[in-house]
């Protein structure tokens, strides 16, 4: 049983390594592009 469970996890691990990386969504257009240069160096919570 333990071996079988380990094998199923190993299958998932291999799938993650082989899975595609970045997706191309040109139809998303400007929604996805958001340029936010930070004008001032301040700590996040300061």
């Amino acid at each position, binding site marked *: *049983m*333990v071996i079988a*469970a*380990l094998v199923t*996890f190993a299958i998932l*691990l291999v799938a*993650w*390594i082989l*899975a595609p*990386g*970045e*997706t191309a*969504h040109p139809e*998303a257009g400007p*929604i*996805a*592009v*958001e*340029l*936010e*240069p*930070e*004008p*001032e*160096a*301040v*700590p*996040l*919570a*300061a």
Partner: protein
Amino acid sequence: MPEISAGDTAWVLMSAALVMLMTPGLAFFYGGLVRRKNVLSTIMHSFFILGLVSVTWVLWGYTLAFGPDTGLGLIGGLDWLGLEGVTGEPSSVYATTVPHLAFMAFQMMFAIITPALITGAFAERKRFKAFVIFAVAWSTLVYAPIAHWVWSPDGWLFGLGVLDFAGGTVVHLSSGVAALIAALFIGRRSGLIAPATEPHDVPMTVLGAGLLWFGWFGFNAGSALGANGLAATAFVTTNTAAAMAAITWVTISWLHRGTPSVLGAAIGAVAGLVAITPAAGYVTPVASILIGFGVGVICYGAALLRLRARVDDALDVFSVHGVGGAFGALATGVFATVAVNAAGVDGLVAGNPSQVLIQALAVVAVGAYSAVATALILFLINLVVPIRVPGPAEETGLDLAQHGEIAYQP
């Protein structure tokens, strides 16, 4: 054969559920801090780890962390692989009044949130595939051994007498140092003039901080592993330190920038929770006020220094968890007293200065191991799967580029 206590079992199981809620809480906390094009990817880091480490912990994580020692006090053996022998009966070693499975589940939630904490450092530019492999490797090769060192009765740091009630070194220092290494390895985000950015949703972050604060009662008071006076002590010290750190952080930011920052209240509270974690069951409520004040000042300063160093630890994981965890571990050596916990030891204030040195040794050992092992893991993964997304994907945003989804409809 130890007997099961219904009250203890109920408290430990409830505490496990409370700690579980911290990881989605962390997802909100981090999710609000990033830009809107990366909020889903940031939330996904925590949520995927909730699934991932739940499985690896059952398969091999628990036995490596808490299983019978392999001989050197460095790591557990494979006796409990797949929870073999871990049943509804109590362990003879851990939490002897609750089912062994309840203790295992409680510890599982700690193992889940620790790698999730690191994700704040590489937010907005980490490739998801590389992140998944990193999470499996880090929880196995870094978290499990360190948990064994500190919390297993056979662990070498446990043997030296290190005090870590709920994970100041095991959880926060280890993840904070790993975050710093990850930030250095992956490099700064593109499109930022300075290594800081405005959060896209402060209410989301405050909600996350509230959930973390709530769940932390399970984290710390649950670490008493029983429904007893020690749990009540840890509950009170936890709340007090969080409160003191929150109001301290707000006060400093008020004086420094002229406004009392809402975000500062949220991050300050988390810093206080981090610092009291190793101390919660060893110090008095009054000591927790001093710890909360100290960590508020020190972590605020660490966040400022991080900016000057121009290290893009995107969500200040090292400043809060690394520095806060180290401070808390040392403060435990200062304020611990057997008047609070007879199973502990006295610290500096109670006349035992050597405890501070023992705590310092733990800080150095855990920090150094986490740094070296994290760097090695990142280097090896990067040979197979590039850690960082390509420039266009980063510009598009990871929500769309990595997950094919967006958080907010136009």
